[in-house]
């Protein structure tokens, strides 16, 4: 049997198997991937030297080896990683045992499973495109197996055509197939992965890790105007407990609900597409008024979601930048003025110098900010190390740092001056993508600021970083401006290069926009999302959904079968078409032309049947003969024929 499987089909199959496994180089342990590559290479060599393929015993040993390898990874049998490894190993082993056509099919089927497993690791457009291509190659292998004497390129073409035809139906299924969340017990979580992001505590300096990360955190699309950059504070975890070095959240308030602040216009409505996170925090624009019911807001106005933070999620919000919160309870007051110990002499004297303890809190806040502004405090993402007493070191010695340093120091100063204050972390700003008209917030936008509680105003946001580096806060992100300023600073001399960069930038934004929609509509199309989308089409019940699914499926199928199967009997010959029309007319009247009847004979017969039409029949027949059989004929004859046929009136006998 082996001989009957053609070399090029094998080659084709092995290449596609190699392609399908390739991205797993990042996902599975090197030992298993190495095992796979070894066996694949072995099989490749086996195409030309079948004698070097392993015998039964060796194959058995290899199988045992593969199992040992799997076992050594301690992953069990279930779960994403374990499953992937298992299928990869099985695929590799099956490659060495191709005896019949059936084995080829098994390999192709295994390869499809491996292809699906790729999506469990990465769901980018590029990956989807890549897998689609490889699936086309895999199907091409099936086509090649099933068609004798067809070259592989044609097989590939055929499989591409089949895939293209299957696409509309697949999309219908994708949109209408009811999505149900898998029950918990079925989820095999892999806890081994770590993501960057905001952490649940803050030490001055900790956010700097994020300062350079380009990773996307969330995207926001506003309905209506986009708030200015200075107002774009995306609220995250709030830290009100400190040991002088490290700031953490007060456990107590995690689950108590917030008293709703008084909001005043303007309101911003937007949807937020959150990328997978490590924590359950949801970063809404300060201050979120309306949020979806599946989110929970605690008394520190931190939004959290239940469920798996590992999933992308989309939420609609309404936020009000101006708000007023209520009174502070005694307990809260204590929490927010908590200090690790008595303040040092140096700090107390600084506070006194700035009018702490005896001026109104508002004034004191301003003075501290001015102090940051006027003294030589500087903003840097690479501050010197501050080990023992970070706040003091920062305030009096290094005087350089970034948001978390300023926020921590500022909050500390406030608390010493008996003003309730806390650190808020989250993100600030975001870059507008003009193509998709949405904001992209990346890890580099992570920020920390302070909230102070003022009499009659409630919690007020104070951003000490703004006092030091106002450009980080106030700059309204204007792409044109940004580019222009870069031009001036870097490429003023070379406008050609600048234009190219401009173009590049736009391309990047375009791609980013595509990616946004991809994430939003494809990757994130889950049960809630689906319900919402289908409801917007007027499809509300599951029953309706199924009707639509079946209906559209049937529609596409019939269109496709019509396209595929209709044999258009195209008679390119206009002359023949005219004559057929003539015959059809007579046929309708009851005089059918026999298949073997020539035009003259038919004319004779029809003249006998319709003596009144003798002239017309003669002329039509004459013209037809002239056009079809004679050497010379003109366009005029054709139009005349057509005309005469149309004029012919024959009554049913």
């Amino acid at each position, binding site marked *: 049997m082996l001989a009957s499987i053609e070399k090029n089909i094998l080659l084709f199959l092995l290449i596609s198997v190699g392609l399908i496994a390739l991205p797993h180089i990042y996902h599975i342990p090197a030992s298993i991937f190495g095992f796979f590559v070894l066996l694949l290479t072995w099989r490749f060599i086996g195409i030309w030297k079948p004698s070097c393929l392993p015998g039964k015993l060796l194959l058995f040993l290899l199988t045992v080896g593969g199992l040992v390898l799997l076992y050594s990874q301690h992953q069990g049998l279930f779960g*994403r990683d374990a*499953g992937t490894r298992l299928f990869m190993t099985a695929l590799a082993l099956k490659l060495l045992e191709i005896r019949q056509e*059936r084995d080829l*099919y098994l390999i192709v*089927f295994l390869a*499809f*499973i491996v*292809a*699906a*497993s790729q*999506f*469990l690791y990465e*769901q980018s457009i590029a*990956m*989807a495109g890549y*897998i*689609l291509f490889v*699936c086309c190659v895999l*199907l091409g292998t*099936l*086509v090649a*197996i*099933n*068609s*004798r*004497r*067809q070259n592989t390129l044609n097989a590939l073409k*055929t*499989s591409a055509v*089949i*895939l293209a*035809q*299957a*696409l509309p*139906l*697949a*999309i219908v*299924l*994708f949109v209408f*197939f009811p*999505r*149900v*969340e*898998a029950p918990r017990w*079925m*989820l*095999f979580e892999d806890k081994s992965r770590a993501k960057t992001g905001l952490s649940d505590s803050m030490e001055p300096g900790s956010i700097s890790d994020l300062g350079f990360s380009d990773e996307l955190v969330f995207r926001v699309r506003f309905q209506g105007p986009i708030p200015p950059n200075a107002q774009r504070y995306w609220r995250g975890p709030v830290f009100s407990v400190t040991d002088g070095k490290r700031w953490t959240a007060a456990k107590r308030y995690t689950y108590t609900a917030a008293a709703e602040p008084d909001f005043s216009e303007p309101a911003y409505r937007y949807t937020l597409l959150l990328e997978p996170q490590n924590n359950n925090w949801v970063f809404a624009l300060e201050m979120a008024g309306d949020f979806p019911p599946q989110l929970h807001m605690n008394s520190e106005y931190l939004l959290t979601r239940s469920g798996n933070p590992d*999933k992308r999620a989309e939420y609609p919000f309404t936020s009000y930048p101006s708000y007023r919160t209520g009174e502070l309870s005694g307990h809260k007051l204590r929490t927010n003025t908590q200090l690790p110990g008595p303040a040092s002499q140096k700090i107390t004297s600084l506070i006194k110098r700035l009018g702490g303890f005896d001026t109104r809190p508002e004034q004191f806040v301003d003075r501290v900010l001015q102090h940051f502004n006027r003294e030589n405090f500087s903003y840097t993402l690479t501050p010197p190390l501050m080990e023992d007493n970070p706040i003091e070191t920062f305030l009096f010695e290094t005087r350089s740092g970034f948001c978390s340093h300023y926020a921590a120091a500022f909050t500390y100063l406030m608390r010493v001056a008996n003003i309730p204050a806390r650190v808020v972390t989250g993100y600030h700003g975001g870059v507008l993508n003009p193509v998709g008209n949405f904001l992209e917030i990346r890890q580099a936008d992570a920020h920390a600021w302070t909230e102070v509680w003022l009499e009659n105003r409630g919690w007020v946001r104070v951003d000490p970083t703004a006092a030091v580096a106002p450009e980080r806060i106030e700059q309204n992100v204007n792409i044109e401006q940004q580019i222009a300023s870069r031009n001036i600073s870097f490429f003023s001399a070379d406008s050609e290069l600048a234009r190219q960069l401009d173009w590049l930038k736009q391309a990047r934004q375009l791609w980013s926009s595509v990616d946004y929609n991809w994430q939003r509509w*494809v*990757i*994130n*199309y*889950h049960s809630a999302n689906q319900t919402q989308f289908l409801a917007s089409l007027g499809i509300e019940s599951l029953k309706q959904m199924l009707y639509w699914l079946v209906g559209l499926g049937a529609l596409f*199928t019939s269109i*496709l*079968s019509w396209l*595929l*199967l209709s*044999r258009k009997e195209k008679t390119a010959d206009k002359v023949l078409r005219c004559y057929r029309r003539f015959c059809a007319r007579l046929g309708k009247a009851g005089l059918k032309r026999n298949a073997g009847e020539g035009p003259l004979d038919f004319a004779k017969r029809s003249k006998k049947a319709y003596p009144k039409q003798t002239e017309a029949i003669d002329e039509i027949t004459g013209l037809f003969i002239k056009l079809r059989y004679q050497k010379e004929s003109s366009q005029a004859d054709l139009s005349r024929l057509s005309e005469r046929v149309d004029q012919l009136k024959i009554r049913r006998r």
Partner: protein
Amino acid sequence: MNTLSIKDRFRLNRFFAGENPSDEAIPLNQRRIFILPSKRGLSFVVLILLLLLIAFVYNNNLAYFLTFLLASVFFIGILHSYKALAGLIIQKGQCKPVFAGERAVFEIHIDNPIPVPRLSLEIDLHDKTQMTLAPYEKKAVRLYAPTERRGHQPCGTITLSSGYPLGLFRAWSPLRFNLSVLVYPKPWPQEIPFPETGGGASDQGKAEKGTDDFYGLQEYQRGDSIKRIHWKAYAKGQGLFSKQYSGEQGDELWLHYEASAGYGNEERLSRLCRWVLDAEKAGLRYGLKLPGQKIGLGIGHAHRARCLEALALF
């Protein structure tokens, strides 16, 4: 031909044996083509279900999409499978008589009237024949079937099938034609002397050719009279030639059913068959006498065929 009663339409036999035998060309259409998933197709369904499970457990939309895509490919496979056969026109061809024990050759013509190539067609009579058809190509296919007994042997059901393009479905069409092969009796294996012909002048059937006028030489053939040998030419070393004379009296041979008394019916026919062949080869004029049947003297291909047919159908 296009009308088919409801009852006929649902006749189960159509499924396996095809329509009633036909003389006409059979165009393959929805009435003629049957499609069912193959074993591989069923395992493909299992694959789809497995992928669906993966997509469901991980709630992974791209895995869902891959699943749906493969499901659509499977579904569309039905159409493609139908397309692999649809439109072909199959017509019965000729079928030359054979001797019992030889393989019968049934010729059928497959016409592909559309500009789409047909890759991977399989025609199954006793053995499977694989073939392809280029656009607009017309091909004659020879199908072989073993023969055992003399007489008319019908061709049986020819099954035309295709697994193209993905092998997930098998489309097939059982075809029956009014096509049968005439099987002559098996010629007696050994050479046997011609029977004595009643009242014939020639001895032992070694009939002599005409003796009127010499008209040429012919290479010596077994059975030619020694008197006819052109000894002069032989002496010159030019080879063995027989003198040929025009006129044809006296080379008649009557083959009797009774001539091989003592044998069973089939053996007799077998011996007669052998004689007919030998007589034809020897260029004798011969006739055949069977109980209740008589074929006059004659020679030539057509005559031989007539005699053999009589033997086959006796």
